């Protein structure tokens, strides 16, 4: 037994950090996508279905072509197709976007499971990770810091979006469509087109999030892959008050706390593991209660959003 491997509590910390990086990425991508969609004035609750469908498309494409990057592209395209479907139906007058989202949630998952059956058994090549931990001789540290490029893509995207929403023309256009449809129309903007594009972008990112799950971590396709991650990511958008950078922090927080449950068991804390597994949800709820107040119920919510009226 070599002593260098005995990390004990440091192992838990390492797992939380690694979890914050690995587990957070799908939440980050989906929540950034939904932020765009909601900023334009639509709610797309169907992103769970989009995530799962993206995961399936990515895995299937990668398995059939041998290229994980093609798989990711396929996931994004599939995701934006579902986004287009959402937008197309919601563009019709008197259609409730919340309900359409739920319908797509079900439809997306059903379609993914249906078409994805032949791909549950096979193995496909995985997305490569960037070995950023090679400075350490400890294999645990090295593995924890093997980061997927998708994570960096997510960070960069969050920064870019945060800045663009405030300082660019298209950011302004997006926000007007979400704040006041009347004002947007008054200056000649085509609301439906803006919302369609925003929803497609949201779908694209969610598809990528799904591709990450099936092609990187945990790197598998089966019907139990997502346990509501897409839905949770949408909740994180509200929690983050529609700010891309806060989506990033929220995702990190969530991913990190999700890693606590398995990690503490490996150092011998064996009672109450279900409660540890609930940690991310309890923490999020706690923070939500703490940071809310009745006077500014949904401050920062785009006024056109149906759930904020």
């Amino acid at each position: 037994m070599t002593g260098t491997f005995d990390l004990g509590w440091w192992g838990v910390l390492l797992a939380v950090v690694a979890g914050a990086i690995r587990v957070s990425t799908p939440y980050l991508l989906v929540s950034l996508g939904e932020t765009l969609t909601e900023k334009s004035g639509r709610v797309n609750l169907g992103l769970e279905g989009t995530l799962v469908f993206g995961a399936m498309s990515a895995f299937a494409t990668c398995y059939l072509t041998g290229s994980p990057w093609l798989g990711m592209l396929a996931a994004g395209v599939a995701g934006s197709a579902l986004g287009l479907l959402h937008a197309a139906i919601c563009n019709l007058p008197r259609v409730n976007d919340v309900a359409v989202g739920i319908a797509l949630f079900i439809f997306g998952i059903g379609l993914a499971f249906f078409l994805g059956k032949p791909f549950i058994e096979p193995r496909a090549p995985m997305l490569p990770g960037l070995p950023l931990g090679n400075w350490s001789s400890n294999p645990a540290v090295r593995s924890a810091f093997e980061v997927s490029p998708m994570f960096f893509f997510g960070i960069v995207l969050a920064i870019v979006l945060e800045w663009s929403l405030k300082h660019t023309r298209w950011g302004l256009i997006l926000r007007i469509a979400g704040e006041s449809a009347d004002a947007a129309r008054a200056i000649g903007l085509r609301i439906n087109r803006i919302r369609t594009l925003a929803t497609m972008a949201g779908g694209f990112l969610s598809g990528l999030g799904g591709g990450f799950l099936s092609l990187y971590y945990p790197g598998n396709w089966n019907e139990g892959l997502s346990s509501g991650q897409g839905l949770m990511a949408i909740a994180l958008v509200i929690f983050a008050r529609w700010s891309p950078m806060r989506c990033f922090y929220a995702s990190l927080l969530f991913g990190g706390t999700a890693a606590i449950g398995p990690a503490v068991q490996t150092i011998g804390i064996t009672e109450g593991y279900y409660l540890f597994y609930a940690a991310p949800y309890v923490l999020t709820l706690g923070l939500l209660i703490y940071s809310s107040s009745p006077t500014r119920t949904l401050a920062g919510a785009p006024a056109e959003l149906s759930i904020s009226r």
Partner: protein
Amino acid sequence: MREPYPASQQDPGFSIEALESLLLALLAITAAALLFGAFLALQGHDALAVYRTLYLGAFGTRFSLESTLTQAAPLLLTALCTLIPARIGLLVIGAEGAVVMGGLGAALAGVALSDAPGAIGTVLTIATGALAGGLWIGAAGALKHFRGVNETISTLLLNYIAIALLNHLVSGPIRDFSQTLKAQSWSIPKSFMIGNIPGYSVHWGLLIGLVVCAVLHLVLRHTTLGFAMDILGGNRRAAQMTGLPIGRLVLFACFLGGAAAGLAGAIEVVAVHGAASESLVVGLGYAGILVAFLARQNPLAVVVVALVLGGISASGGLLQRRFDIPHAATTVLQGLIFLSVLASGTFRGRLLPRRNAP
């Protein structure tokens, strides 16, 4: 988003709106069926044969009908957890958690009251489950009203927390260790369990669900409370200005919705399992959300929708066995129907001539 003056208050009785809704629903279902048929045909299946089997498996024999009713029964109640708060403009998706809490509450009550005589024990057990579910979602309502916490996220989080709590409790603190089969709570006395409706193999939960939906419909349409809820749901400012007790309405609606789902969970314990376990977490809550939305938040329509969705679920098994079509096909069909019905909503008010078009 809701019309300011809901049709229910405009035209009592059989209205053009109701007829139109029915027509649109039929058109939508037909469209979805065609799409589904095309989808299956692309996969190489005989669409017509599939439809015959769908009908056979859902309504074709007495056995199928009973299966459909069994599937539909819990949905009648879990749908209300989304429906009742939706009437006042809240989007609650916490039915799954309420079902779990209802089941836990019922199991614990049943065990604690095990000396009570049968009928009373059953009633108290079920009531405790309903109460537990009501408090759970009521808490989300309180968070919304007093703290401004968005009810959609809070109820979603409460789902996961309820499930974790259930698993923790039945794996240890309230576990019946003599059961080696699965981690489950202590069992309620056999005398508290409810059986099947005489002559049918469906348990009494079906009737309870039907009664609750009927009563709710009456309350929402014919009482001041229902009217107040409609106003609040239509226009919050108008509600404030007319001096409605918004806080109480929010708490009440959430409590009632949670109680309905909790009731479903309690019935699962009292009619099927006899104890609380992970078998309470089978998606009854999420299916209920689907039913509520498809029924456009109308309790009578919930009955019809639950039967349709229950029928599809019930016949799914036959599809799998006869045609080797994956279980997911029923999900695809349900999704298609839902999308179709929603898209058809755009024709509301334009399909049939109206006396007073909005």
